[in-house]
């Protein structure tokens, strides 16, 4: 009770300090007056009466101090005093405060943002039960290993391995799929999804939020009329209504029943059936799951039909290596027992590696870069704080001579650094948010990017990092300056104390480290940027300005044969339907005003190799594994002129080929590989058991990937009309309105077509190098930050050392040295750490380049331009940084310099 009342009274006093001070003053004055009065009455003289009264009272100041200690919260009050003092001091050196703050903000913010991306993309476990146990297995065939090291999985092998392996608990098989989905009213929309074996959900440890998972019976042909939706799809298609269960959706034109809705937390990353292919996109992309029903021949095929991905869960305690050796052993034994001519094998990989394998290295590179910036920033902070600590040695000595305790002095420094650290930390949080937004914009191609969030622990980390570095680098010099004896510190001037050889050496070392870091970072940045510039500016061997692409999806049932592969592809009813639709669409597109050319192809440009097949010559058999491989593309007449790909020999397809559709055009490289040293025109190749005659040779072009020419063989589209045709239109119209027109024409032909993508060729090109752009942009940012930090650091150290040597320079000048000589002295002083740092940086860059070589495109890791430019930029920056200190040194007034000492 007492304690509470005292606390309350102290609180009250805390906020009314000034008034209470006045009252106390008055009270003390009255007291003295009373005493003087009484002393006068006793007959003392006026002067004596006053002296006596004061003596009786004791120390007035001490009394007031004791009274104040009793009254409020002395600790808080001195703390507030320290805060005010620190603010005043920081205001007096705005350069220092701004530099420290900026450094803290940039550094902690950048580290936090990049780390949150690394965490979200690479480190965060997947949202499954025990994700560490989940693996992916792929198959390999020794005979074609040098071409294609890994293959998708064969259904029959999957069943065999799943039944016999003891190292796995369960294995599910799946295939990516695209469904055109419609509630039955409007144009169907495309939705990505997976066809999965019924045990897929139990393997991942996921129970549907509503309804149920698939039953084994539903994985039989003709009984697979059910779908399971993700939470997101349920919200989008049914607005989260529970009546969705049992509702009917038209999927690919067929009515299907919704039997389950997955929980909100469930995410499955984008996968590629082709091994080693970069995957990207939101982990919310897959929205619809269907039971996987194998085709009849997939159940029997033993050395073909590698069409799937297998996801397995290891037994507890079993390592990937153990599982790999068991599965590989079973596969080899089975293949031998079956008397297969090819040598099969199995490769097991962690699930995470399957998803992020491609992107891991660039991301870690970024993280390393940001850590480099972090290191440099630390060096700068240390430098700044040391300089500051020395500068206030005199002040510290004075205060301690006046009776300030060690603790009191330390508290002052502590408060100042805490303030800087906290302000820096708050700034860093803001900066991290901004940086994360930018990252998300420039890195749309990262897998799992939608799972990147700045979490609370991450933000605490930013704040903590800022506080810790601010305190760490602020307190060490403070402790050091406390050790100085007040007497000697006051006698000597601060310059003598800190101008020691050792201090100078450590400052030079810090500059060297900083220069080394920024040289490394600049060179890596220059290399990656140059590689990116190469990628953008090189000849693509096609020219597609003013071209708009529209991808249409013909998945309504009249186009699909219900999924069965026809006996005579191209001549069946569904193929004819697709042919007619594509035909009419092309006619419509060509009739649009302003259209210069229109064509169709079977695969979206710049989306990588797809539909790769061997070029087999009936007249010239080659051993398996040496068959040249090429991408199969179905195109219409006019494709080459629309894409700007020149024909080197022969002719384009023409309507006349409809009579005899078995014609093929080869890309130059493919022609040379299949017909080395011969003229391929008029010769034949075998494909799908049919004989095709070569009628043309097209120039090589980078239609799949900007990094290299794609080997291609082109077939006329009516030979097997694509189910997902891509229409290309070159027009003088604006891209926006052209896109609208193209949609209108396509829907005019068939309103049941879904059109997932309409995009200009330029955008498609830009998107295909999104990862490279992301790297280049981010690294440039870090490179600029590193350069800025290095400039600040060099400037700080030089300016400081010039200010320390003011007296020396004064003496030199008085003795006849001229200004040029002084400037040279300063530059010389700066040059040794600079040159040393550059040498060190080159070594660092050489080490880093080895590591990033695989990221570089047609750019040598020892690219003289990149290295020369980086060094030149750094030298220029260093020169700029030393300009002001050098000028200060040269403009020293010898009289004043000597007098201030």
């Amino acid at each position, binding site marked *: 009770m*007492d304690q509470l*009342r*005292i606390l309350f*009274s*102290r609180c009250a006093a805390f906020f009314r300090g000034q008034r209470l001070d006045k*009252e*106390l003053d*008055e*009270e*003390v004055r*009255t*007291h003295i*007056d*009373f*005493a003087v*009065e*009484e002393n006068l009455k006793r007959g003392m003289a006026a002067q004596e009466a006053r002296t006596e009264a004061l003596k*009786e*009272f*004791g*120390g*007035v100041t*001490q*009394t007031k101090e*004791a*009274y104040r*200690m*009793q*009254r409020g919260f002395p600790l808080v009050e001195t703390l507030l005093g320290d805060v005010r003092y620190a603010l005043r001091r920081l205001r007096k050196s705005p350069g220092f405060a701004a530099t420290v703050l900026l450094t803290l903000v940039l550094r902690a913010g950048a580290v936090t943002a990049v780390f949150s991306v690394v965490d979200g993309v690479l480190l965060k476990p997947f949202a499954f039960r025990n994700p560490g146990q989940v693996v992916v297995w792929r198959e390999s065939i020794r005979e074609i290993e040098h071409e294609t090291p890994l293959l998708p999985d064969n259904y029959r092998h999957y069943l065999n391995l799943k039944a016999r392996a003891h190292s796995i608990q369960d294995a599910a098989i799946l295939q990516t799929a695209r469904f055109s989905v419609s509630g039955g009213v409007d144009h169907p929309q495309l939705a990505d999804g997976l066809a999965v074996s019924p045990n897929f959900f139990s393997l991942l440890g996921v129970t549907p939020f509503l309804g149920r998972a698939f039953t084994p019976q539903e994985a039989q042909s003709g009984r697979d009329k059910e779908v399971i939706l993700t939470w997101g799809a349920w919200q989008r298609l049914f607005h989260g209504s529970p009546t969705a269960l049992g509702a009917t959706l038209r999927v690919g034109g067929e009515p299907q029943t919704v039997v389950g809705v997955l929980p909100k937390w469930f995410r499955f990353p984008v996968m590629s059936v082709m091994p080693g292919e970069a995957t990207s996109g939101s982990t919310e992309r897959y929205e619809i799951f269907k039971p996987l029903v194998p085709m009849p021949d997939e159940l029997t095929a033993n050395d073909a039909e590698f069409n799937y991905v297998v996801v397995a869960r290891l037994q507890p305690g079993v390592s990937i290596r153990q599982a790999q050796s068991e599965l590989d052993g079973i596969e080899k034994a089975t293949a031998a027992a079956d008397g297969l001519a090819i040598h099969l094998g199995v490769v097991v990989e962690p699930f995470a590696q399957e998803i992020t394998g491609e992107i891991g290295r660039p991301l870690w590179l970024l993280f390393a870069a940001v850590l480099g910036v972090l290191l440099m920033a630390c060096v700068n902070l240390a430098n700044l704080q040391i300089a500051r600590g020395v500068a206030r040695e005199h002040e510290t000595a004075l205060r301690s001579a006046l009776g300030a305790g060690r603790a009191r002095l330390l508290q002052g420094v502590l408060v100042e650094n805490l303030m800087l650290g906290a302000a820096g930390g708050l700034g860093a949080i803001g900066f991290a948010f901004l940086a994360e937004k930018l990252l998300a914009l420039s890195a749309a191609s990262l897998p799992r990017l939608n799972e990147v969030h700045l979490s609370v622990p991450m933000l605490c980390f930013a704040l903590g990092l800022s506080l810790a570095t601010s305190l760490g680098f602020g307190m060490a010099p403070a402790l050091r300056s406390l050790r100085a004896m007040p007497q000697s510190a006051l006698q000597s001037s601060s310059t003598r104390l800190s101008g020691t050889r050792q201090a100078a050496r450590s400052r030079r070392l810090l500059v060297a480290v900083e220069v080394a870091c920024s040289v490394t970072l600049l060179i890596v940045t220059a290399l990656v940027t140059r590689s990116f510039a190469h990628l953008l500016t090189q000849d693509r061997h096609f020219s597609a300005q003013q071209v708009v692409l529209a991808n249409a999806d013909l998945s309504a049932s009249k186009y699909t044969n219900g999924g069965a592969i026809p006996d005579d592809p191209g001549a069946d009813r569904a193929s004819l339907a697709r042919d007619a639709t594509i035909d009419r669409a092309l006619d419509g597109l060509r009739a649009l005003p302003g259209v210069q050319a229109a064509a169709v192809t079977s695969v979206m440009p710049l989306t990588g190799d797809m539909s790769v097949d061997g070029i087999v010559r009936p007249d010239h058999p080659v051993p398996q594994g040496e068959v040249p491989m090429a991408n199969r593309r179905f195109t219409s007449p006019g494709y080459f002129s629309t894409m700007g790909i020149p024909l080197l020999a022969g002719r384009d397809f023409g309507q006349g080929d409809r009579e005899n559709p078995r014609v093929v055009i080869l890309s130059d490289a493919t022609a040379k590989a299949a017909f080395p040293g011969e003229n391929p025109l008029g010769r034949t190749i075998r494909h799908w058991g049919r004989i095709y005659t070569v009628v043309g040779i097209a120039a090589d072009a980078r239609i799949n990937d900007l990094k290299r020419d794609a080997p291609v063989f082109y077939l006329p589209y009516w030979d097997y009309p694509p189910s997902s045709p891509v229409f290309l239109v070159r027009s003088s119209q604006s891209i926006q309105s052209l896109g609208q027109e193209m949609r209108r024409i396509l829907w005019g032909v068939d309103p049941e077509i879904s059109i997932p993508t309409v995009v200009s060729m330029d955008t498609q090109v830009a998107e295909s190098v999104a990862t490279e752009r992301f790297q280049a942009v981010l690294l440039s940012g870090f490179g600029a930050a590193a350069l800025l930090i290095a400039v600040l650091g060099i400037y700080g150290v030089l300016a400081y050392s010039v200010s320390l040597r003011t007296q020396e320079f004064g003496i030199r000048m008085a003795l006849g040295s001229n200004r040029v000589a002084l400037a040279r002295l300063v530059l010389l002083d700066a040059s040794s750490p600079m040159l040393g740092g550059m040498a060190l940086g080159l070594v660092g860059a050489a080490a880093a380049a080895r590591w990033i070589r695989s990221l570089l495109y047609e750019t040598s890791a020892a690219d003289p331009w990149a290295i020369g430019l980086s060094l030149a930029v750094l030298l220029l920056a260093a020169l700029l940084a030393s300009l002001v200190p050098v000028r200060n040194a040269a403009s020293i007034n010898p009289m004043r310099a000597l007098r201030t000492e």
Partner: protein
Amino acid sequence: MGGDKSDVLQGTLDLMVLKTLESMGPLHGYGIARRIEQVSGNVLSLNQGTIYPALLRLEQRGWVNSEWGASETHRRAKFYSLSPIGRKQIEEETENWARVAATMARFLAPSN
């Protein structure tokens, strides 16, 4: 400042102030200090200033109240008076002090 010694002294001073206010009624700081000196027969040399932190302490506990008023010589001064809680507290403090004094006496008595 040695901690323990001043604590004992503080406690003593507090009780002296309370007793003074009990016997004299409302009084200003100077009056209290003079009264303590007189009663102690000037044996106790008191820094008069120390009375103020003590008064503040008592006021914080709610044992005394203070009020600005005029002295006999028409000087503005702050007058302190015993509060009802303080009046009750005197008994307790007195008992406490008696107990301590008795204990001390027993220690100091010549051992037999």
